[in-house]
């Protein structure tokens, strides 16, 4: 059958149904009608409020190189345990929950939406989906195996710090040095200094091609001065944690600071 003919037929049917419905409505008492209208209004308001709530940024994004311990931190935050360990993530871990460390606290505690984005370079485009809603970004660095990965980590951090969604909204960033339970782990001061140095070098090479690179919309720091994280428009702090032993108090502090209970 021709689709236009079909459509005409449908239209006829619809108008007929409409007439029947209107006839029916006239027989219904007005109180019932008002009740129905009230229910409709109530549900729409409820839906709208939920939608608005979602739009408000309360997401904490965990990011960093593959193998730095993001998934472990995620499960430490959620369940207070690493379960039986983790392997390389292929998809983001996502959850809205009350932090495990706060479940024993009294009073009403707001749940936090936490996303753990895989660090594998092939999966980095996923990060852009979550950044617009981010209330805070945690950049996890492996403090134990830092030096071989310093350049890759700094490049990733540079990309992150120059992303439009981060710069415009001034999303606070925490550089979290993970695995500090090990004796040979580097200190957070050392890591901060090394990354500043590395980013300073990146700045010169990236600014040369920044015009071509579509992803880097902003430049970092003050020209002519060595780069420090204090020059960033957003707040950059450093902290230490150990995902394996569950020493994550500084991370929890950061989350609570930016997602108010």
């Amino acid at each position, binding site marked *: 059958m021709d689709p236009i003919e079909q459509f005409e037929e449908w239209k006829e049917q619809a108008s007929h149904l409409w007439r029947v419905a209107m006839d029916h409505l006239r027989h219904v008492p007005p109180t019932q009608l008002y009740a129905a209208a009230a229910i409709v209004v109530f549900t729409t308001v409820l839906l709208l409020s939920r939608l608005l709530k979602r739009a408000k940024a309360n997401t904490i994004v965990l990011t960093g190189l593959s193998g730095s311990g993001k998934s472990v931190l995620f499960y430490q935050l959620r369940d207070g345990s690493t379960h039986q360990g983790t392997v390389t993530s292929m998809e983001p871990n996502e959850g809205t929950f009350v932090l495990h460390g706060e479940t024993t606290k009294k009073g009403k505690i707001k749940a936090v939406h936490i996303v753990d984005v895989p660090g594998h*370079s092939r*999966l980095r485009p996923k990060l852009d989906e979550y950044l617009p809603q981010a209330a805070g970004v945690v950049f996890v660095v492996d403090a134990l195996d830092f030096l071989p990965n310093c350049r890759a980590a700094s490049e990733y951090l540079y990309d992150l710090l120059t992303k439009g969604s981060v710069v415009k909204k001034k999303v606070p960033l925490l550089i979290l040095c993970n695995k500090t339970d090990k004796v040979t782990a580097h200190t957070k001061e050392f890591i901060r200094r090394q990354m500043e140095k590395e980013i300073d070098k990146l700045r010169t090479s990236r600014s040369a091609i920044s015009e071509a690179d579509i992803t880097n919309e902003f430049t970092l720091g003050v020209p002519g001065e060595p780069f420090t994280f204090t020059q960033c428009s957003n707040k950059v702090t450093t902290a230490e944690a150990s995902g394996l032993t569950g020493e994550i108090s500084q991370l929890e502090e950061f989350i609570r600071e930016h997602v108010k209970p």
Partner: protein
Amino acid sequence: MLEQLLIFTRGGLILWSCNEFGNALKGSPIDTLIRSCLLEERSGAASYNYDAPGAAYSLKWTFHNDLGLVFVAVYQRILHLLYVDDLLAMVKREFSQIYDPSKTFYGDFDEIFRQLKVEAEARAEDLKKANPLGGGVNKKQYHKAGSEGGSVGGRKSSNGALKNDGGDADADDAGGKKGHKLENGHSNVNFVAAKDANLKNSGSVNGKENESSNIGAFDVNKLQKLRAKGVNGKKAEAKVAPKAEPVKKATKKNRVWDDSPPEHESKLDFTDHVGDDGDRNVDFLAKEQGESMMDKEEVFSSDSETEEDEDERKNNKPDAKKKGWFSSMFQSIAGKTNLEKSDLEPALKALKDRLMTKNVAEEIAEKLCESVAASLEGKKLGSFTRISSTVQAAMEEALVRILTPRRSIDILRDVHTAKEQRKPYVVVFVGVNGVGKSTNLAKVAYWLQEHNVSVMMAACDTFRSGAVEQLRTHARRLQIPIFEKGYEKDPAVVAKEAIQEATRNGSDVVLVDTAGRMQDNEPLMRALSKLIYLNSPDLVLFVGEALVGNDAVDQLSKFNQKLADLSASSTPRLIDGILLTKFDTIDDKVGAALSMVYISGAPVMFVGCGQSYTDLKKLNVKSIVKTLLK
């Protein structure tokens, strides 16, 4: 023995691991599997081989896409465990019944697993006993295996019992040879490219269970035979090659390889007449051509995107109409329960054809579709979605993942690092004949020069007449120093001297031009391998033309293979990046980019898109993916 069996979520949380084995795995096979196989869209392969010091594992896996679970079995490669596929399928079935997203500990699964394993082992034993008797079905299949696997030898045409033994012996043989090959350090990881035995198994499960496991085991056998054949074939090739070589050498020696060429040939070498008056007229500067297109921002208007989307919708509409307008709409509203392979096939076939019309090599399109199918099978289709759009979305994600560079492509950063270490950054351009190595070398030189990097060219194409003059012309126009040593020199030595020269005069980058060579030309590939081994460049750039279709796979894989096989060192240098040339001539047939990146794993670093020095661009992943799926 099975070494380990893991069940984890796609998010990376281990839900259950078999703790009865106790012995820890050497190295990290699971992480390596995920990083270099599952995330590279190679999950359509049947198994994955992992080599750690002191251990050689084979890994098999299966997905439960709806629940987002991954099941991985690890076992010693020398043991050809027949029951692994079977066991994985059973574990998948049993575990998906007790899986609960909020639960993270499954202590009670230990008992179930033990039973499953005993069952699977018993079935494998039965199979072994049943095989020599040779049931009608078995025989038939073995004959099929013989014809499918190619005639390996007269042995294959004898009766079933003998064949089984032969198969085993072959497999062992293959294992031994492989082990030997690995000792040489030629390849640490190899994929067994064969249809997923597990998929086949589940497809024919409706028969008797015993029979189905037979088929599963048969698949494994066949696979091993194929593998054995592959190894044999390779060996044969290797045997033939040295034979062929001396003959070739005898004919070509006079011209190229000999240290003292005949008198009259020196006349061919005109390179000493640098700065002849005749050449003067090309001396004007090319500096005024404006900035290289590498630096220009590409603006994509959102208008065109939406337009394309609309076009797409229009294109898709007739498709849907064919199936019956109403039923497909009903299905899309209700949402289908679970996607099966048969549901996906038409959509995948259409997608594969579309990819192939865009000049993606057939092999690659096939593998990609298999991998997408593996990632979608068993998934629930959401309401208001069509299968074709779901498949398309999955494919798009896969394509973006493939084309996103795995390593940094910030060459300038690398150049600065090299500068700090006071040594020149060496880039070697390799590729087949006539793809535009010299032209694009000049473009790269121009781009680097624009960013205040001092460049030096090295003319190591000592093979083709006129190559040095061509490069010299470029050098003069760009006012770049060029290092040349005429035609009859060994390119590896020329490159070495060029790098020394660059270190002396403080050049930051040395761009080494090499002669074009076909991937099958053994002597030339050996020379290239020597050049790379001797000079250990910072970047080996493969120059390939975007016009190439199925040959892209052959070119890149052979280049990589030859560089690995012919190298003298134990850790050979492979291709680090790709320069795609003639990109302006192909319109929307951009498939070569995908084929090349998929087969080599190296990112596309530059795209040559015109005749002038400024026509060098970066690859825009988004636009490529959009064009591929248009």
